[in-house]
């Protein structure tokens, strides 16, 4: 065991190539590209918009905008994208995350105020914040089990399977809500604290853009915690290894002893749980458990994952990459809002971004493939 370093002398050579190389290797080239894109976008919004006479660009660099608008706006899509990252790295897809979030939203609200189909189960406690959060997440897990069952046991293609459950879960969210109407939670300040609460409000940070330091939103902290947990899961656990292996080559993974069905089931459960949590937080943010809360969010989530460097064929991608892409998309949306672009323009931009992200990912794969073939050709 002591001979590890002696085994691969070249490794030390390659990695010990100065501080800069080590830094690049640690962050990853793809992630560096994203960080660069984020700065380019900031520059565009703050300075270029001013030069061209757009109003609103100057509002960007204010605590009010950065901490209250931007940092909370990315949370919901961010959570969905993190769950989706795991699924996409495994070479699959979950289109149903938006509908799962809707179910999570309605279920959490229903338990909290004792309304709707599930809230009417009168033997269950109401008014308990933790309980309703857990139940919202559990509802997401159950949705994940359904997705996992359809994909692993019924052997339906993941895209078709989750397209079906996108519709079905969306309908179920309406069926749970009383007469399909939203369930208000405004009377539950402990619950809405999840969206409105702030940590570290008394830090001595000077005001910016004429707005005082508002503290770090609870929402943002939750996203960061989930990002770290997912990153740990994908990088340091056997589950993460199995996900990368399945996405890279599922047949080889199975013949090396990975139980494909088990891993795929767990993966959909994880994605469902995170989507359920996103739904719970949507309820807190909008102060109502609304069955339309999650509609359309899957598109933004999937866009962020591909923008974050995941391969469409699976086996490649990182949680951190997705997180950076979520920030990038958030800044883009926020900037367009401030500069006065309407939502229709924003939808066009988002659609184009998804296609651009996938095109970029294909190009990267083609480049990697060229490298491989040129090496094979030397043989």
């Amino acid at each position: 065991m002591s001979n590890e370093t002696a085994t691969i002398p070249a490794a030390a050579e390659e990695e010990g190539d100065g501080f800069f190389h080590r830094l690049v290797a640690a962050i990853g080239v793809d992630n560096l590209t994203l960080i660069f894109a984020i700065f380019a976008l900031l520059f565009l919004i703050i300075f270029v918009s001013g030069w061209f006479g757009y109003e609103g660009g100057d509002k960007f660099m204010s605590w009010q905008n950065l901490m209250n608008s931007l940092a909370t706006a990315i949370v919901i899509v961010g959570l969905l994208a993190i769950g989706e990252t795991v699924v996409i790295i495994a070479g699959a897809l979950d289109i149903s995350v938006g509908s799962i979030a809707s179910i999570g939203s309605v279920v959490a609200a229903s338990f909290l105020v004792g309304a709707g189909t599930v809230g009417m189960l009168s033997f269950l406690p109401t008014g308990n914040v933790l309980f309703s959060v857990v139940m919202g997440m559990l509802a997401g897990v159950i949705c994940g089990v359904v997705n996992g069952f359809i994909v692993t046991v019924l052997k339906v293609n993941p895209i078709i399977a989750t397209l079906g459950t996108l519709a079905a879960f969306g309908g179920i969210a309406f069926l749970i809500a009383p007469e399909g109407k939203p369930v208000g939670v405004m009377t539950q300040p402990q619950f809405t604290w999840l969206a409105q609460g702030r940590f570290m409000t008394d830090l001595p940070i000077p005001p910016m853009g004429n707005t005082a330091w508002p503290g770090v939103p609870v929402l943002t902290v939750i996203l960061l915690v989930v990002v770290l947990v997912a990153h740990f899961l994908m990088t340091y656990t056997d589950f993460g290894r199995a996900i990368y292996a399945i996405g890279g080559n599922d047949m080889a993974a199975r013949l090396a002893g990975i139980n494909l069905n088990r891993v795929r089931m767990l993966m959909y459960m994880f994605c469902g749980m995170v989507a359920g949590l996103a739904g719970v937080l949507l309820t807190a943010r909008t102060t109502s458990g609304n069955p339309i809360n999650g509609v359309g969010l899957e598109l933004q989530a999937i866009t962020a994952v591909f923008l974050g460097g995941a391969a469409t064929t699976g086996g490649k991608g990182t949680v951190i990459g997705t997180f950076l892409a979520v920030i990038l998309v958030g800044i883009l949306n926020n900037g367009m809002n401030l500069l006065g672009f309407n939502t229709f323009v924003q939808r066009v931009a988002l659609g184009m971004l998804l296609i651009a992200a996938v095109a970029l990912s294909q190009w990267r794969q083609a480049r990697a493939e060229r490298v491989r073939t040129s090496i094979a050709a030397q043989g």
Partner: protein
Amino acid sequence: MSEEETTLPGTLKVRHISKAFPNVLALEDVSLDIRPGEILAFMGENGAGKSTLLKIINGDYRQDSGTISIDDKVLSFTNTRQAREAGIRVIYQEPEIVPGVDVPENIWIGELPKKYGVIDRKALNERAETRLKEYGFDSVLPINLMGDELSSAQRQIVEIMRALKRNVRVLALDEPTSSLTDEEVDRLFTLVKRLRDEGVAIIYVSHRINEIKRLCDRIAILRDGKLVTVQAAEDMTEADIVSAMVGRDLSDVFERKPSASDREVLRVEHLYSNWHNDVSFHINAGEVVGFSGLIGAGRSELAKVIFGEDPKIGGKIYLDGAELNVSRPDQAITKGIGFAPEDRKREGLILIRSVLENASLAILDQLTRFHVVRSKEERSVVGRYVEKLNVRTPSLDQEVGKLSGGNQQKVVLARWLAAKPKVLILDEPTRGIDVGAKAEIYGLIDEMANEGLGIMFISSEMPEILGLADRVYVMQNGRITGELSGSEATEEKILELAMVDDLTTFDAEGIPELEPENEDVENSEG
């Protein structure tokens, strides 16, 4: 090294070709002639530059310097189509086959005969039947098979047929026999010789020395991108060839002394499956048991049934005396079986992941605590096997797809050595691997067996089976047709058992006479 100028018309002249890739000079000032009516062998270890040269001739790559010409006309290709129009055709190991269409359509793809604007099926099928019959492949390639039902051998034949429908002047075959049975090899050789006699210039790339000696007129040997020598085949002995290729002596490749104990580690009794009919055999601890047979005999499938990948219909399997009932590979691995599949790129490795991740995949449960991978332990265990197997990789974090074939196979073996199985199934472990790496793998198999592992060694290369196996089972059509001890196993006996019902007559050279009515058709890949 340059050759004397030749005046034979139709000679493909390669002059001073060099080609560099980012980290390596793949070809350096290579000059040679490929003459019509001659079969020229390209030999060399992986990385010697054979494939690069073929790809330049085929228009896949452009040379950095040097020229290629026929009849003093300099050829400058930017793509494969131009090369084909010039009469040059390179047949690679894995030809492009359209999965959903049948054999005739695959052969005449792009130029299907039409009648009133629709495909003339009748004319097409007739044409295909005549062509295949003409070249003696009608019995091995039924025309109603779809692209995805074809075995590797059949795919090759389709590709060769495609080449022959045009006027071919230069035909290059890149390791055409690596997935062919001996019988198919003979048919191919008959065809190649016939084309030579018709005046085609033929390049034949192979690792198999005895084939080259049988078939080729001249041998060109490349090493590290340079042309080492070009000589008439009859002037070179096997030892000459090997030493020119590697610059070292490989005479001690096959020196396994049997180390089998009396303890049975694997016993299979009356096994039935979708492919198998009453298969019974056993493997002892410390024994290398060879499984020989033609492609499609059911050897790979047998491995997969034992490994829980394919379903068993009847019969019993015992591992170390205890009955083994597995329905998934992970269960088989837990019980102590390892399996290195035949197609390492498709079934063995996750090419886009690292050496480390690939090698530790089967033992992750031993390397984790509360599902968290103990990274230091993992690196030390994998590092130990990477060193033991002499895997040439810049680091453990290198993508496996970027390693050479031999090193990729060693990563697969490292995975199974680390798993410490009781029985290890090796399916064609040396396919497509250069001579040096082959020798290392043979040494490794010998060593593993000496340490008490029972090895099920599936191979289509006769010398491997004869040199390594302590005992040999021969399979045919999903049955075991014979068992031979290491001392009684000979090439003739094995062939006889592999083809008991299929083939009864041999001619003097061991080339089977073409009697299609006697032959079974091999549809599935073995």
